[in-house]
């Protein structure tokens, strides 16, 4: 027995480089980005990093497209390359690219949204000084590339340990990114600390869950767990507690109630482009991991976890919708909206069917585009002190800048699920999957919460259009080309996926098969 294991450890695992290329490229580019920070002269860093990051993501996306149709488990069972994995990786790459546009915007504020030295004590003389200085951090690029690479690995991880490593790889850069806002430094640092501490707790739960599942199944790879769920002679309690703890880690990252409390604070405090990145890409990655764990590893326990997760979905939708009503800050409002939306995705996930998988994938992409555009517009509404995020400051925005107010209204209608937007097609997909899987109660809850959350969205619309502009209504800054491109892409995708969703529906339909 022992010799067997020794022999196995000595054998090099076979690596399918083509299938792993999307992640390898990003990690490689991330390392090069770190070197650029060390070597390149200060002036050249920003353009070099930007070009490098864009090329890196584009190359990674190309590799994903080339790998399309692959279905295999590689790297000694650590990574699964299959339809959902590749689709999620592609979504992360595309959404990441759009978020990168927002992150790279430097014409709204001298030096961009990030400070050069995040470690300077907040509100000190030196800190105020650096806020007005033109230089900004370019370390954000390698951090973002590492984070995106980690997300891709997370969506493709085929055993719990790889998943844990990927979780940390994509989380740690995010914690740092949250702390680097140029304005409202204290809020930003508080957000980072909160995210880090709670994230560490969640990781600990996740890790302990892995240990318990290993105790039950004797394996950490998903196929092994799948086989053990029915056959293992060990105490079933180990499985349940382990699954619950693993789930807590995943639910935390996906911002599902009751593990959502960090979301509003972090979304509000983080630099808005980073918030956009988290709302779009982290959500995709987190649900990618959740989907794989639920569909591949624990599929046979679905009768046990479905009611519990169903209750969590209802709670999430309710908490997101009800608390959104009371918000007075646009970033917090969008944070609660993202919580509610995570609940709708979970409704699709819990169908535990091909349709459920496909509709969840569709929802994640549709929501990602909309939320990127929405946060993109938030970065534009600013005055001398930076972004004006308090809702009262948005009063009469429709008069001052009808174009952006129209776009934002359109995005809000998409979040509310009005037809001819991607929000409607996405919701229809998950509701249809859920009803087909006899989860009608989730759909009823979804419908009721949709009605509740329409109110805060409408309130913003009322603010923008029906209220008279006040003294303090900030004008919308003229966006630089990058933000304009990001907002345009996001809004156009929201419209197109609402009117002609068929191509993406086909893609999700074809992708919706996991390998085990």
């Amino acid at each position: 027995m022992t010799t067997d294991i020794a022999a196995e450890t000595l054998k090099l695992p076979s690596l399918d480089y083509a299938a792993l290329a999307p992640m390898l490229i990003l990690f490689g580019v991330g390392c090069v980005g770190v070197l650029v920070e060390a070597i390149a002269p200060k002036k050249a860093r920003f353009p070099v990093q930007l070009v490098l990051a864009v090329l890196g993501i584009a190359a990674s996306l190309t590799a994903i497209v080339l790998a399309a149709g692959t279905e295999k488990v590689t790297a000694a069972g650590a990574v699964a390359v299959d339809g959902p994995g590749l689709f999620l990786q592609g979504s992360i790459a595309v959404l990441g690219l759009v978020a990168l546009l927002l992150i790279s915007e430097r014409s709204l504020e001298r030096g961009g949204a990030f400070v050069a030295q995040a470690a300077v004590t907040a509100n000190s003389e030196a800190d105020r000084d650096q806020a007005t200085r033109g230089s900004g951090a370019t370390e954000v690029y390698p951090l973002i590339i590492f984070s995106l690479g980690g997300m891709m690995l997370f969506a493709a991880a085929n055993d719990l340990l790889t998943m844990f490593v990927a979780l940390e790889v994509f989380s740690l850069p995010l914690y740092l990114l949250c702390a680097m806002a140029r304005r409202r430094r204290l809020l930003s640092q508080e957000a980072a600390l909160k995210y880090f501490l709670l994230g560490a707790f969640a990781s600990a739960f996740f890790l302990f869950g892995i240990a318990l599942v290993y105790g039950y199944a004797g394996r950490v790879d998903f196929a092994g767990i799948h086989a053990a769920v029915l056959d293992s002679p060990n105490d079933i309690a180990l499985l349940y507690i382990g699954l619950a703890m693993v789930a807590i880690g995943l639910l935390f990252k996906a911002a599902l109630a009751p593990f959502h409390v960090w979301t509003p604070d972090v979304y509000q405090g983080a630099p808005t482009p980073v918030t956009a990145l988290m709302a779009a890409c982290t959500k995709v990655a987190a649900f990618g991991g959740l989907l794989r764990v639920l569909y591949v590893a624990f599929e046979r326990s679905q009768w046990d976890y479905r009611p519990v997760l169903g209750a969590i979905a209802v709670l999430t939708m309710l908490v997101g919708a009800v608390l959104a009503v009371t918000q007075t800050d646009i970033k917090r409002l969008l944070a609660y909206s993202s919580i509610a939306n995570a609940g709708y995705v979970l409704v699709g996930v819990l169908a535990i069917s091909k349709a459920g998988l496909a509709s969840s994938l569709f929802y994640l992409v549709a929501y990602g585009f909309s939320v990127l555009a929405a946060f993109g517009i938030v970065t534009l509404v600013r005055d001398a002190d930076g972004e004006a995020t308090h809702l009262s400051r948005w009063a009469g925005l429709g008069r001052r800048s009808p174009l952006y107010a129209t776009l934002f209204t359109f995005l809000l209608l998409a979040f509310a699920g009005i037809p001819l937007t991607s929000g409607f097609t996405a919701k229809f997909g998950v509701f249809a999957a859920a009803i087909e899987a006899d989860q009608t109660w989730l759909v009823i809850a979804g419908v009721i919460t949709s009605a509740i959350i329409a109110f805060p969205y409408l309130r913003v619309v009322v603010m923008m259009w029906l209220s008279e502009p006040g003294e303090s209504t900030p004008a919308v800054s003229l966006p630089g080309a990058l933000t304009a491109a990001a907002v345009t892409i996001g809004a156009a995708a929201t419209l197109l996926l609402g009117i002609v969703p068929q191509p993406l529906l086909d893609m999700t339909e074809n992708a919706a098969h996991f390998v085990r």
Partner: protein
Amino acid sequence: MKDFPFLSVLVAAPLVGAIVVALLPKSKAALAKQVALVWSLAVLGLTIVMWTAFKADGDRFQFRESYVWIKAWDARITFEADGIALVMLALIAFLVPLVILASWHDAERSSRSVPTYFALLLTLETTMLGVFAAADIFLFYVFFEVMLVPMYFLIGSYGAGQRQYAAVKFFLYSLVGGLFMLAAVVGLWVLGGHTFDWHELQKADFSTGAERWLFLGFFLAFAIKAPFFPFHTWLPDAGSAAPAGAAALLVGVLDKVGTFGILRYCLPLFPNASKYFAPLGLALALIGIVYGALLAIGQNDLKRLVAYTSIAHFGFIGIGIFAFTTQAGSGSVLYMVNHGLATGLLFLVVGMFVSRRGSAMVGDFGGAGKLVPVLAGVFFIAGMASLALPGTSPFVSEFLVLLGVFTVNKTVAVIATLGIILAAAYVLWMIQRTTQGELNPALTKLESMRKDLSLRETVVVAPLVVLILVLGVYPKPVLDVINPAVSATLEDIGKKDPAPTAVEREAAK
């Protein structure tokens, strides 16, 4: 001519006009109005051609067009029209140019973009035409929801009084109903074999429980839209806050989507559930008749008053639908048209009064007939039509409804007749307090109150008055179109008219 894609052109045309108007610069307000008016008249012309091409004795559904939209869900862009839809389409096409003309100066008062106002009106026309022409349930739902957006901005941006509150209330009420319908639409799609086609779904069989839940999902949305008691509270707010033209469309057409939806979707798709829930529908409608009328009597705001009278009228439409006889059904559909004409006229005339007086309160008027006799005369005609005086078109429909209901349910018919008396009370009292009696001295001080109907306003009210009187005497052209469609709907739910008692006696012998 037969193969001309009438319905898709009809639905798309106003949208194109809306885009054109919206792209005009703010300063070109006059041009925007003219373009909008001409465009809506062209739509009306097309509708008239379509009406002549419709064969009343032909197929139940005509002008069918179907295009693939979202293949994965088998959602198609399918349009077709039966007689019921046809008359509603005609009503919309007829009312919109009048509303545009009546709203000529409305938008200027609000200090907001004038072209946008007319663009919104045309967008609203597209969605209204679409909702009545759609024969694919997905498409119907899309129009049903999207319709809220232009109306929301019409009320919220261009309205008066508590416009923001009214706009949000209107939107949320409709959205809540719409979302429950969405759940039912999804359920229907899953249980009906993954199709949205009306004809396919009509053949589908559901278990009793499922059918009842699906019915309730649809019914709730339509009852809010119509509105039936107790879902009506948004209507007076929206009706009084909306600019007069938008209010005429809101009450005259938009709300008919509710009653139309019950006839087109609830009854044929869920026949057994419809029969099961018919007492509920009758009860809500009856309460609406009495309650709406009583509240109308108590109103001091003219626009709110008209809105409450509409709730009473929707009650009549409701009992006509749930009586399940051809007479009552045809009466209901005819009522939908006539109510659109009569209440549309009433709202527009009230709007003319309000724009002159600067107030909608009944107490601010008094003896206005002495200053503006012609306008007061039109107001009187509109009021008489609203209380269904014989000779005006609503009389025919109300009579048909009561007759049809009486043959199956005498109690309901008798209580509903009470509504007629109450209608006389609120209309006559309203007219008396505003245009009759002693002249309110405050009125004489107002320059605008001394101007009687302008040419523009005459052009607005004349066609409505003429049509109300003509259809009051000779409703046959409309009834000929409606009757086959109503009979077919009743066949869908397997109801036959009760034989006349005389025949029954014959048979017993």
